[in-house]
């Protein structure tokens, strides 16, 4: 004897199918809502459409020429208006695109760049130690020399950070290549082992301690 009607069974079955779908949708909506404002791979409009492709790729300017504190401080540093002016007081100094730059000089107010890389406030990232330990700019920022407008390359999620902290070997470069414009492929074999030893990379246990990044 049938206890439930066919209709009821159908509704229950449909409901069971709907549940995971609903859950998936909810998770997707949550992830979308909680994501960083600028998705990886999407260029963001800036006050001046600054092209890393032109400055780094074509002109070959070193990262540290503008990001002056990357080797000394946790912040890589965005160039002051004056640094832009070292060239742009002579080159393209009346280009309409550079109007915000001239305005900044005249008013003494900084150029309001859109932030691409926004870590949560409980994460304490330090640029200087990463570049000192052989993590090249490109490992996190991607092929900057090919970006006409800059986009975020990495997800910046903890999983992504940990992937490297758990096994840094394949993300490390010899000191000479850290600031190299074009991305070099990682070393392999004995060269990699020698590099790891010379950089004194800390143990995986230390690198994955909560206290390494959170405090």
């Amino acid at each position, binding site marked *: 004897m049938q206890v439930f009607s066919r209709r009821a069974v159908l509704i229950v079955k449909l409901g069971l199918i709907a549940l995971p779908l609903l859950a998936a949708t909810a998770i997707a909506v949550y992830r979308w809502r909680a994501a*960083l*404002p600028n998705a990886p791979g999407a260029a963001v409009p800036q006050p001046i459409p600054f092209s890393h492709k032109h400055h780094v790729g074509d002109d070959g300017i070193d990262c540290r020429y503008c990001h002056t504190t990357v080797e000394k401080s946790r912040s890589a540093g965005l160039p*002051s208006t004056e640094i832009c002016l070292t060239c742009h007081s002579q080159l393209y100094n009346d280009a309409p695109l550079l109007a915000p730059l001239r305005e900044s000089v005249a008013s003494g107010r900084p150029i309001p760049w859109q932030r691409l890389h926004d870590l949560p406030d*409980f994460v304490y990232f330090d640029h200087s130690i990463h570049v000192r330990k052989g993590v090249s700019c490109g490992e996190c920022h991607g092929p900057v020399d090919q970006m006409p407008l800059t986009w975020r390359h990495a997800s910046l999620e903890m999983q992504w950070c940990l992937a490297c902290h758990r096994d840094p070997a394949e993300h490390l470069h010899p000191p000479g290549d850290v600031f190299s414009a074009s991305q070099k492929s990682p070393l392999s074999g004995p060269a990699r082992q020698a590099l790891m030893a010379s950089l004194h990379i800390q143990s995986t246990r230390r690198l994955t301690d909560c*206290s390494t990044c*959170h405090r």
Partner: protein
Amino acid sequence: MKPEDRPFIPIRPLPAGVDDPGRRRFLHLMAASLALAGAGCSGPPPEHILPYVKMPEGVLPGQPAFYATTLVRQGYGQGVLVESNLGRPTKVEGNPLHPASRGATDVFSQAALLQFWDPDRSQAPWQGGQLASWPEADATLLDWGAALARDGGAGLRILTGTMTSATWLDQWRSLGKRFPGARWHRYDPLHDDGALRAAELAFRRPVDMLLHLERARVVVSLDADFLGQGPAAVAHARDFAATRSDPARPTRLYALEVVPGLPGANADERLGLPPPRLEALVWRLAARLGVDGAESLAPDSGTAAWEEALAAALRAHRGESLLVAGPTLSPPTRALVHVLNQELGNLGRTVDLIAPVEFEPGSHGDSLAALCEDMREGRVDTLLILGGNPVYDAPGGLDFAAALAGVPRTVHAGLYRDETARRCAWHLPLAHDLERWGDARGFDGTVSLVQPLIRPLYGARSPREILAMLGAEERESDYDALRRVVGGRLPGRGENPEAAWQRCLQEGQVAGSASAPLRLPAAARPRPPDFGPRLLTAVFLPDAAVDDGAFANNAWLQELPRPLTKLTWDNAALLAPATARALGLENGDEVELSAAGHRVRAPVWVLPGQAEETVGIPLGYGRRDAGRVGNGVGFDGYRLRSGAGVTAPVGLKPTGGRHDFACTQAGDSMEGRPLARHATAAEAQAGKAGPHRKEPRDSLYPAYSYPDYAWAMAIDLNACIGCGACTIACQAENNIPVVGREEVMKGRQMHWIRVDRYRTEAGAVLFQPVPCMHCENAPCEAVCPVGATVHDSEGLNVQVYNRCIGTRYCSNNCPYKVRRFNFLQYADNDEESLKAGRNPEVTVRRRGVMEKCNYCLQRITRARLAAEKEGRSISDGEVVTACEAVCPTRAIVFGNLNDPASRVNRAKASPLDYALLEELNTRPRTTYRIRITNPDPALGGNGKGGGGGE
């Protein structure tokens, strides 16, 4: 209904009038709210990056810079190094080169940071209750100056606190050329007028005393709180602790006190005596030591043993002893103490006399009384009050406010729009020490430079700039004046004057500018004073947290448990247990105190060890216009003062009312457990004081390995004087919020390091700072369901705020009770100025998150990154925790256990080292060294000192 049908949990019907939500409706609402909760989450808002337009030289965004400057309190400077993060002052550290700091600071210098960022600070000029502007103020004062100049400034009076600034003196002298009739009055409510009068009696000239506690083997404190009060307290604490660290050279501190203070708590022998008996004891002691003039006093059977013991100890240590007298003693008795120090050969050895550091030294009480007299007689038409708050803190007997009302032109310049500001025609915001150029002298005369770290937040001006508004001189900038007055008189060393000046700025002081000791003829024998009748005596004293009231609006200090009472957010009329019993009073009973024609209601706190027949009255409370933190906290003791004296007869009458205190540690017994351990020097020498450490017992948990570093801390209870500087330094360093009075009453204070206070059965006080123990077998780690408290590879128990869901299991399982929970949103995330003052290296915690000491992880990280970048290991002393750095007595040592030569390993190797609650086998990384006292066998040898005044 049959009994078995009845549900196990009885279901009661809803009371009438309450809407029954029904099960379905309840589920609907829950589902909807769940969905809404999810939908409400969103990612971080888009942010801008604002780089410099012109990058300043030497600024490294993300790395703090330190500047040497000076914080001025009651006229005297304490040299400090202030941490600046992108131009924002975020932490005060001691200046190792400065004699008043020596790398440490007191609680006030730590809290000066919060004072600087206080959103209640005065932000604009006010004219008679209306907001005004600086140009209006400029015009008004210029007019007044012109009017005053016509009669030589005969009606001009200027009131300041203690002044030690050379640029001020220079300005005052040039002002005198235009306004020869002007008068300068000085008033600090707790200025030690008696010390100057005693010096006049003994030496016929004012002198300051410089104590060399490190050279003394017998110190007798005659109600002198040299460890807790005054501009030299930090230096004294350092020297005092140094004498106690050397077991081969035993020293002894005898403290005779009226109201218990830090010297009594740290004494080897202490006795509580009311002022008349204390004074008589000094005269009889002098007679025993052969100083004439005191033979006729009748003996006091209660203190005879003490007199004999003191006389014997002092005689045995000629040239190595030291007597210090406090303000409750009358000037003749204090003059007698000068004589005693001289007779005992201490002058020039354990104590030096120097010319007063204060300019134009004199009685502040007389100075203010003369000003009030002039104001009442109508001789004052313009009064400038620079700093200070006399309407609040002038003695009630003077009625300063009424006298002030008769002055037509009044200006108050201060950090806050306080009681005085509201009764003056004009109020002008005064610049904080962190935003002005200037100078002050340290307690020993060292010229110290005040250097700004930031431009004035609210356009405030320095005292010098405000005085210049009268138009008396050319507008010379504060920096130029400092360069001319101080920089022009640098001690010549044959070097480039500009280089010498730059070095002074870098060091924050003029090296070698301390006053030279005076060579004085033999002190004159004073006449015995009238010791006065034995009445109930009020003893007015500065509060350990709000000082004279200037820090009343400082929440860090209000919430700092006072060293001996452990009260927060309050003051109390302090009574001896015997006096309280006789009056039938207990803690929290309200009484009415009457003196100087005023009546004040105050709650009673019974303080063991206090002298009978006295009422201790901490000043600085009962503020009406301090700000939103300090208003209405406690009672105002200034009303009860008739003059600037610190003792006065007082009437006391129970009212029957009750008051609840926010006290962080109610009991003072260790309940028979060896928590704060102590032993006598004799026991220690006989080897009976240790070893304390036992081999750790077996554990079910596997042992951790620490290949690189193993951080640990050692705390020396023998050095700790209980001042509480560590608590405030930790609060500043780690962005610890304050919770307020009501939450403290629920036991929800957030301090990461607290100072526990116990009393032994003999009445001796023991202090024990308690931070997180960072246990090897941490009970907290085992119970966290979400892995938010974990053991890291260097042995820290780290709290991961972003994982914590607030179950509080860890806190319940912590035997040391060092974990603190954000029951509410304690951190203020709305007030912009408070945000700017936070340490950017430390997360600001949210509601519902557990937090605790992490051994200043940010400082370890800073050292680690520096070492890793240079390819070396962290050396000993490179990581200095905030509590270690601030400690005036160096009681706290932090370091790496894996380094056999580290200071912390040396400290832990002592047989006197022990672990708190060792029997729990938690294996703490923080350990203690026991307190060693050196009681006098002549007084029974138990450290009790004849009853402690009970």
